[in-house]
């Protein structure tokens, strides 16, 4: 069984009186993708900053790849890749120059920038200045930059926010490829579908605390409800929605009645979404 790539123990950070991260503890196994979900101001970015050595925890400890990040920041940073939410590229440099700069900072001598750019779909534009790129292209370059050192842990902060479906899909493919390579992925996102699709486990963060942490399937089992959604035609000829909660003792009878007493037009089963579960747990939406 793989060891833990990230271990957070009672991790705490506060800005003055405001507690941004409140004694959170979790672990992420090597090769696992952890979706880190929560509304704005929940403490996600502060947590990432502590895990990547940008902030020193006020209390608690973060161990990455067996090293305490507070004590071995530079060593750990040599093994991680970070893709930020905001675009922070050197726009007057080309894509190749951006990647080569970071390769040199990581001490990598033999580096094939063109190959990496090809991987993120930027072949043919390698020598163009970044300022001429579209938002999607910049985001793909940011992902490429986070892969320069073939990181053992990859931190991705909203990597597909505001992107077109093609760019989003390209980035999702890269995330899965990185997992296949053996990298651990710490994925911060607002996109529930994305988190559901990519993550082995998801953590819900609210008001500085982790309120739930499990696989999407288990969370849905535990907090969600499966339902049968149907559209039926009433006697007056109008369409009406009907919902039957599944997995209860009354479910079979309810289904029988639905078909016996109504003219069913469409019927399909529906699972709870992660957003539904988040609202159920915290009483607030993820985009609040």
């Amino acid at each position, binding site marked *: 069984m793989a060891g833990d790539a990230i271990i957070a123990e009672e991790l705490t950070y506060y800005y003055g009186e405001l507690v941004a991260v409140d004694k959170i503890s979790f672990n992420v196994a090597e090769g696992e993708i952890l979706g880190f979900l929560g509304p704005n101001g929940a403490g996600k970015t502060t947590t990432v900053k502590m895990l*990547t*050595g*940008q*902030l020193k925890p006020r209390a608690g400890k973060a161990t990455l790849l067996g090293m305490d990040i507070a004590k071995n*920041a*530079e*060593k750990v*940073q*040599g093994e*991680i890749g*970070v893709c*930020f939410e*905001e*675009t*922070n*590229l*050197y*726009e*007057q*440099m080309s894509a190749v*120059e951006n990647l080569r*700069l*970071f390769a*040199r*900072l*990581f*001490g990598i001598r033999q580096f094939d920038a063109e190959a990496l750019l090809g991987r993120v779909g930027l072949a043919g534009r390698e020598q163009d200045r970044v300022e001429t790129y579209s938002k999607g292209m910049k985001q793909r370059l940011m992902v490429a*930059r986070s892969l320069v050192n073939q990181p053992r842990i990859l931190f991705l902060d909203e990597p597909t926010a505001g992107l077109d479906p093609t760019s989003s899909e390209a980035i999702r493919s890269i995330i899965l490829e990185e997992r296949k390579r053996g990298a651990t992925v710490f994925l911060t996102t607002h996109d529930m579908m994305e988190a559901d699709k990519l993550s082995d486990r998801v953590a819900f963060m609210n008001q500085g605390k982790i309120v739930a942490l499990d696989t999407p399937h288990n969370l849905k089992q535990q907090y969600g409800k499966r339902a049968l959604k149907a559209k039926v035609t009433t006697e007056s000829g109008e369409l009406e929605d009907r919902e039957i909660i599944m997995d209860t003792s009354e479910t079979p009878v309810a289904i029988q009645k639905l078909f016996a007493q109504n003219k069913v037009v469409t019927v399909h089963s529906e699972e709870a979404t992660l957003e539904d579960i988040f609202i159920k747990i915290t009483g607030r939406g993820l985009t609040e």
Partner: protein
Amino acid sequence: MNWRIIGTLVAKDLSLFFRKKLIVALTALGLVFYLIIYFVMPSSVNENLEIGLYAPVIPPVFELVQEEGLEIEMAESEEALKEAVAEGQYIAGVVLPADIMEQFQSGQKPKIILYFTPDAPQEIKDAVEVLIRELAYLQAGQTLAIDISEEILGPDMVGMPIPPRDRLRPLLAIFIIMMEMLGLANLISEEVERHTAHALLVTPMTVIDLFVAKGITGVGLAFVQAVLFMSIVGGMSGQPLIILVALLLGAVLVTGVGFIIAAVSKDFMSVLGWGVLSFIILLIPSFSVIAPGTITGWVKIFPSYYLVDTVHRAANFGSGWGDVGVNLLILLGFSLAILWIGITVLRRKFQ
């Protein structure tokens, strides 16, 4: 500190600096402009006082003063003399009466008329009047019954007149150094504003590596340009080592100020605002070189005074380590203190 990382960052910063066409053009044009200013300024000082004289009879004593830095030229008429003075050809015009020798012999007081331009300084008027009285005494055969003694306060620079362009030389060199203060502050401010600093700080690079790299870039750009300028204008010929040390310390000083400006600025406009303010403050001591006597001792509270004064004295008077050593030590202290303050406030911003 990781010198491989620092070297990479310096190369990156220089590359970005030279890609900013506007800044490169301003830097190059600035350097050329300063050189032009230097070379169009007068390269020598005319120490002679040129006085116009109209005298139907010239007393013999007036011919003696030609050897004492006075040039007395004869005018054809009183009207011609007045016209020449009005045009600035002479600093003063003197009209002697036709019977001056007879009046001297009979013990009478001859009436001598002096003409000056309206903007002639009072000092010149007084000097010419004293000169004429002296000559009159000499001609009359009497001497002044006083002893004159001189006391020189500060370095005795009599006999060492500085041409205007050499007087301007330290000012221009310091101008160049301070221009880079703005460039450096803008470079750092952009790094924060565009969040590229965040990307750098999640690599094995430390904040100290970043500051050292920025410092090297800032000091290097300022120092190289100032040295280049001083070499072209001949400022390095007398005391090159002292000038190099002074300019290097000056570059460290403006790097510290550049760090402070970057820490308090949010964008290019605020860099410009704080930069110009710092620029003016640091430039004040230069006026003591351009116009000696206009600024008194209070100017020594500005750290740039010790840079200006050192460069001025070393380049223009060949002052040695013994003369400017204290200046350099004070400049070193100021530079390190301001650099430390700059690093401290900038570090807070990065965190």
